[in-house]
């Protein structure tokens, strides 16, 4: 079998495996209604707002309205009492949810407001009892205020939370690992740190969202999303970096190019996709199940399973296949690999395409758990990928996997003891400590890196 045929057979096997994994039976949607397992990423909406601020003073002069809907497992919740205060803490009014669980409140002017849950009806609890106040920024027009109700009491006490977060950490770590492998291998084979890698992650998630919104089931939409991400990886290689390298553009300049590209890609996505966070139409809402000390949803388990299977497949391909060997050889010593007859440019191409596909799949899994936004690619994804690959050893594939898993665990376990908003900060704290103590990373070779 020629090397080319072998490589394409490998990628076909990879895609088929992906499809099978995605279609795993446990992914079947549970019919039982509403327990909002969708996790709200409070940052998402704010970021979009702030970027829209860059364009001061839009023309529309709609009144500023805060609104929301309270639901729990039994349906809409009536009679939740809220108070609304402005940024100086001055109360501006009250609202109560109606029979359909909806409430709205017209604030006097655009600005920052704090919405506090004052009283809940009998038998209803906040999902997070400590988050009874939500701070929002409202411009002109309507602004949704998400305050999730639910069985928040299900996870009570530090020990239970600890177990819970271990599972979340593994889930998140595996997703980061999938996206980080490509970033690390691109660095390993070309020396380039691709600051636009986060945008490839987004392309996967957003392309999937469009296919999903057009009526395609998420599993098939995800296949299209992965292909789109793989293509964008390939285009970045063939269309941008290979020609530039041939022109003799230096690595410093290429780094700035990746930064510029990430801006261009991110804001094209903002224009096309919009600034709002959007869920996929399947698997957004699932019933929790208990597995020993862990509370989870079938969706989470499937995400973990897919990620594990894909990562093992990638590791096996790198370790066992002829192509994987060539890839390791290029990463080890490019010139030597080239002189021993390896087609380095083709290896680099495949790394970009496969890395793009993995990044896209990671983005899709992340967006299935949270929601699709145009900008989760930089913060948290890219920053955590950086933390993961440096922790594991820059340029290695296994290091990226191990490091990302550690980063995922650190991020999620920090929530047990520290505020949720700061979880990314802890992961990056780990990064700085690693640079001080063992700059080559956990699995990196001792070599001169200074």
């Amino acid at each position: 079998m020629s090397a080319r045929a072998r490589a394409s057979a490998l990628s076909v096997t990879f895609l088929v495996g992906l499809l099978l994994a995605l279609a795993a039976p446990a992914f079947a949607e549970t019919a039982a209604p509403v327990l909002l397992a969708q996790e709200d990423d409070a940052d998402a909406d704010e970021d979009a707002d702030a970027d829209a601020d860059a364009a001061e003073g839009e023309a529309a002069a709609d009144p500023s309205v805060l609104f929301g809907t309270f639901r729990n497992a039994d349906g809409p919740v009536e009679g939740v009492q809220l108070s609304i205060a402005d940024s100086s803490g001055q109360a501006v009014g009250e609202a109560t949810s109606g029979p359909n669980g909806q409430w709205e409140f017209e604030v006097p002017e655009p600005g920052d407001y704090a919405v506090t849950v004052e009283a809940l009806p009998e038998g209803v609890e906040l999902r997070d009892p400590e988050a009874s106040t939500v701070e929002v920024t409202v411009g002109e027009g309507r602004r949704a205020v998400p305050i999730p109700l639910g069985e928040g009491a299900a996870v009570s006490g530090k020990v239970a939370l600890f177990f819970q977060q271990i599972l979340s950490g593994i889930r998140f770590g595996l997703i980061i690992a999938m996206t980080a492998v490509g970033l690390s291998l691109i660095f390993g084979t070309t020396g380039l740190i691709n600051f636009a890698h986060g945008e490839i992650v987004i392309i996967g998630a957003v392309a999937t969202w469009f296919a999903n919104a057009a009526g395609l089931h998420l599993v098939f939409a995800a296949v299209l999303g992965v292909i789109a991400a793989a293509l964008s990886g390939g285009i970045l290689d063939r269309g941008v970096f290979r020609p530039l390298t041939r022109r003799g553009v230096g690595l410093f300049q290429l780094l700035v190019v990746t930064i510029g590209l990430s801006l261009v890609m991110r804001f094209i996505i903002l224009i096309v996709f919009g600034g709002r966070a959007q869920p996929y139409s399947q698997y957004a809402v699932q019933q929790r199940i208990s597995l020993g000390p862990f509370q989870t949803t079938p969706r989470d388990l499937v995400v973990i399973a897919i990620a594990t299977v894909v990562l093992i497949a990638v590791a096996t391909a790198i370790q066992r296949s002829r192509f994987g060997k060539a890839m390791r050889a290029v990463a080890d010593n490019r010139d030597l690999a080239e002189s021993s007859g390896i087609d380095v440019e083709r290896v680099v191409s495949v790394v970009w395409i496969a890395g793009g596909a993995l990044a896209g799949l990671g983005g899709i899994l992340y967006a299935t758990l949270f929601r699709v936004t145009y900008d989760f690619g930089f913060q948290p994804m890219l920053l955590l990928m950086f933390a993961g690959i440096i922790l594991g050893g820059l340029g290695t594939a296994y290091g990226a996997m191990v490091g990302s898993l550690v980063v995922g665990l650190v991020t999620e376990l920090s929530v047990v003891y520290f505020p949720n908003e700061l979880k990314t900060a802890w992961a990056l704290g780990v990064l700085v400590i690693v640079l001080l103590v063992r700059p080559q990373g956990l699995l990196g070779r001792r070599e001169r890196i200074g």
Partner: protein
Amino acid sequence: MDLEAILGTALRSAVGPQAAVYALLAIGLNVHYGYTGLLNFGQVGFMLVGAYGLGISVATWGLSLWAGIVVGLIAGVLLALLLGAPTLRLRADYFAITTIAVAEVLRLVFRSSPATPITGGPFGLQSIANEFYALNPLTRGIRLGPFTYSVNVSWSLIVTWALVLLATILVTLLVRSPWGRVLRSIREDEDAARALGKNVFSYKMQSLVLGGVLGSVGGIMFAIAGSTVNADAFRPQITFFAYAILILGGAATRIGPIVGAIIFWFLFSGVQGLVRDAQGADLLPGVLSGANAVGASALILMGTALVLLVVFRPQGIFGDLRELKLDA
């Protein structure tokens, strides 16, 4: 389409206080990237600590403006030392990753609700520059051709551009000195500089501190111009704008950052004005009609400009290609 008005607004922001703030950031970055070859992707972090140093001192601790400025500058020095200590001995890419990450983490920490008692959390801090405006000797705003700045804006404009001038002179003198020649030798060939007995780490650290403090000065003037600090103003894009400005004007040149900042802000607000007007006149296809499109299209243009400049004219307008044989 009111081209005259768009042109006026664009000119107005090209010489306004914001352009001067970005010129300060770019001058600091010039010391890092242009003269020393340090790939600092977290200049906005220095801006943030400068602005918050002033803001927290004045609004939270009730100190005077001058004490606040000193705190802001010290914060810039400390950030440079903290960033430099683990990373400056390592390869350039580690430094780039760490700076971009630390700057974003600073933003997250300062805007988080646990920090609210000190930083104002997501709401930021207000009324931090009253003392500065009380010093205003002007009685009426500056008139430049068709547009007028308010009295207070004129005051911060004059002071900020004066600081830009001072910073330019300071950096020019420093890089002409033997110290500056060592910096440039590090940029050209770090190993050669080391072989000649120079303590490369120490020089890089000094360069990082100098450029970082200039970034903090930019942050302080940014906070003063708006009389507020809010963490969400300090997004990573700002660093990239500073790069665009520096590369546009020409890295490792004296007036590159100034000219770059003026051109950048002219284009940036000009493009936003054009898109907004074109939206009003229904000239654009559907995808570009959203509220996001105004800011986003300007950012896309800047990203594209950054890429094209780096590839086709890395020396910018005034630069000398021989000065910039940077390579990692």
